[in-house]
């Protein structure tokens, strides 16, 4: 009897505590979930609803149900902006990755006492507006700058860099590089150095150590960085408009055209939904691919 009465209060206390902690959790999660609901889910729902509507007389949106907007978005003659966007996003991400890896590796391993200074230097460009920095490339690459100089050297007066996919790619790598460097840097910075020593002790060369120890450990940083660069790149429209002279026409430019110029919101919304679907599929595929590789390695280690 005594034992049971002693146990009972404990039993009663447990749910009470869990109710309280549940409340607390709910309270703490509330701002984030409200933010998520109001600023992400609700607009997304609006976009999806709008994509089935029609353009009103003055432009904008009239309620309705039609699949014509999706028909237009997936019209084989009009999918080229999607294709350009995907190839630019992949190319830009790969180039960012190749450029960021040595930078992050250098700062993390050879930075020494200058480490924090080097990190600050990476952030410094953000103090100037992105747009002004992009405009600066106009002067640098223009006919009075590198473009004209290279043209002079090659002997082709009509040579130019601006208005080519190369200029856009350069602008993209310049703009998005820090987004790639930081996650990689953080994982490399936290890496246990003794593992490298162990690898060397076991007779692995520099390259083998990098490939078999450093790279797998920093994989999370690589994956995070790639996604951070890839997703905004899919929606990019400023850099192609400025550095590409509008000759590189991405899905972002198409969306601007449909929302702000044609004022055909339903048609734009349908394209936006298709874009979101493409990004979801490619990111899920990428994560699956990246994690699959890691799991195999873990098994082999075991």
């Amino acid at each position, binding site marked *: 009897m005594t034992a049971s009465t002693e146990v009972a209060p404990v039993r009663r206390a447990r749910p009470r505590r869990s109710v309280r902690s549940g409340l607390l959790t709910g309270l703490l999660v509330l701002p984030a979930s409200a933010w998520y609901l109001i600023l992400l889910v609700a607009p997304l729902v609006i976009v999806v609803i709008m994509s089935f509507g029609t353009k009103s007389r003055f432009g904008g949106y009239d309620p309705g149900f039609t699949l014509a907007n999706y028909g237009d978005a997936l019209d084989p003659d009009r999918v080229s902006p999607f294709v350009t966007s995907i190839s630019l996003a992949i190319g830009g991400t790969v180039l960012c990755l190749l450029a960021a890896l040595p930078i992050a590796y250098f700062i993390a391993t050879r930075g020494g006492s200058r480490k924090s200074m080097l990190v600050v230097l990476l952030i410094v460009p953000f103090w100037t*507006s992105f747009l002004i920095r992009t405009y600066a490339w106009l002067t640098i690459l223009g006919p009075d700058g590198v473009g004209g100089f290279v043209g002079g050297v090659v002997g082709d007066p009509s040579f130019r860099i601006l208005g080519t996919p190369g200029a856009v790619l350069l602008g993209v790598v310049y703009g998005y590089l820090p987004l790639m460097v930081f996650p990689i840097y953080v994982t490399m910075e936290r890496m246990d150095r003794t593992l490298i020593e162990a690898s060397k002790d076991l007779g692995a060369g520099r390259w083998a150590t990098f490939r078999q120890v450093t790279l797998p450990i920093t994989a999370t940083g690589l994956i995070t960085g790639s996604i951070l660069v890839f997703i905004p790149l899919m929606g990019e429209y400023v850099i192609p408009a400025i550095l590409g002279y509008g000759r590189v*026409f991405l899905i972002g430019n198409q969306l601007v055209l449909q929302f*702000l110029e044609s004022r055909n919101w339903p048609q734009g919304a349908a394209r936006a939904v298709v874009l979101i679907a493409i990004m979801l599929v490619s990111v899920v595929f990428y994560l699956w691919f990246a994690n699959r590789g890691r799991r195999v390695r873990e098994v082999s280690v075991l």
Partner: protein
Amino acid sequence: MVDQSMEQMVRQMRRGLERTPLSRRGFMWASAMSASAAFLAACSSGGGASSAPSAAASEAASTAPSEAASVEPSQALESLGPEPSFVVPPNIESELFMYNWGDYVDPNNMKLFQDVYGVKKFTYDVFSNNDEMMAKFQGGATGQWDICCPTMNYLPAMRDQGFLSKLDKSLIPNLKYVDAAFKGKYWDPTDEYSAPKDWGTTGITVRTKDVKEPVTTWREFLDLIPKYSGKVVFVDSADDVFIAPLKANGYSLNSDVKEELDKAREELLKVAPHLLALDSDQYNTKIETEEAVLGLTWTGGILELRDKPKTADVVYTIPADGTVFWLDTWVVLADPPHPIAANAWINFIHEPHIQAIETETNRYATPDSAAKQFIDPKLLADPALFVADDVVAKLEPQKDNSGIQQRQDIWAEFKSKIGQG
């Protein structure tokens, strides 16, 4: 929004660097204004520090230069001729929110308006084309601004959607200066909603140094484009780009006939691969650096190029097969936060002296003949600006074509093919 204002800043910086030597009147304004600029600079540098000397400096700044700023503009005006009459309405608000094209009002006129009318806060927000402006209001931006400058073909739709207020004509006596040619037209049959701002054309810009062939018509222009492949710039505006193929074939530039638009599509897709850029903001820079030697452009930024020795070979032609006539208008928006200041502004800007300064700054033709006596005769004699009567007869007013889906589709297809293949 931030991006736009940044873009605006950059554009202003560039223009500031490129600006031709100041005209006589410009110089007087500039000297009057430099005092207030010094005042602003003193304020901003003094504001950062917190020690005693800065307090002394800002005190000094707030006495001396502000005096100069309030006195010198009127002195400058006196030397121009008879003193213009500014009637300041009683109970005018102390703020004015304007939504306008970039760099479209003489900054000194804005300053003068603030000084004379006691409008302390004057905000100037920017849109880059009519559709962007329209999209803002359709998105529910009503009540955010007092005054706006749509092109006339957008007026009917704006009026029908309830985005406009009627003008308070008792506050705008200066509408008497507006020429009859701009009254009672299709865009505002009763002249209740708008006052004209300035008007212009869309035409062909040629670097005659590089292009030796005569280009006097849209037909010749379109046929020349493949020869100057990669050196041609068009403004990024559907209505303007459609003019070339439609007029070259003798159609109306407002055509909604399927066969005519099919023909226009064919012509546009033929030239698309040869274009350097579609660019509404920097087309004049591209012409200036000879990156582009042929252009389908507005006159803005182009006429100034002819004054510089390096770019004196720039020619702006109004094509003989006819082109568009556009008119930008002042409107008071619906639910304006400051209706009296908004109407007072329209009255102020139609004061002939002020109008003349606007014309000299913006280099677009004024709708007020009364202002012409104050305009630099050199500008008045410019056929690209004040178009000869026989050319005016060939101009066609722009209509609202945004509801024609075929045009939208052609435009989207054209834009995605620029420089491709």
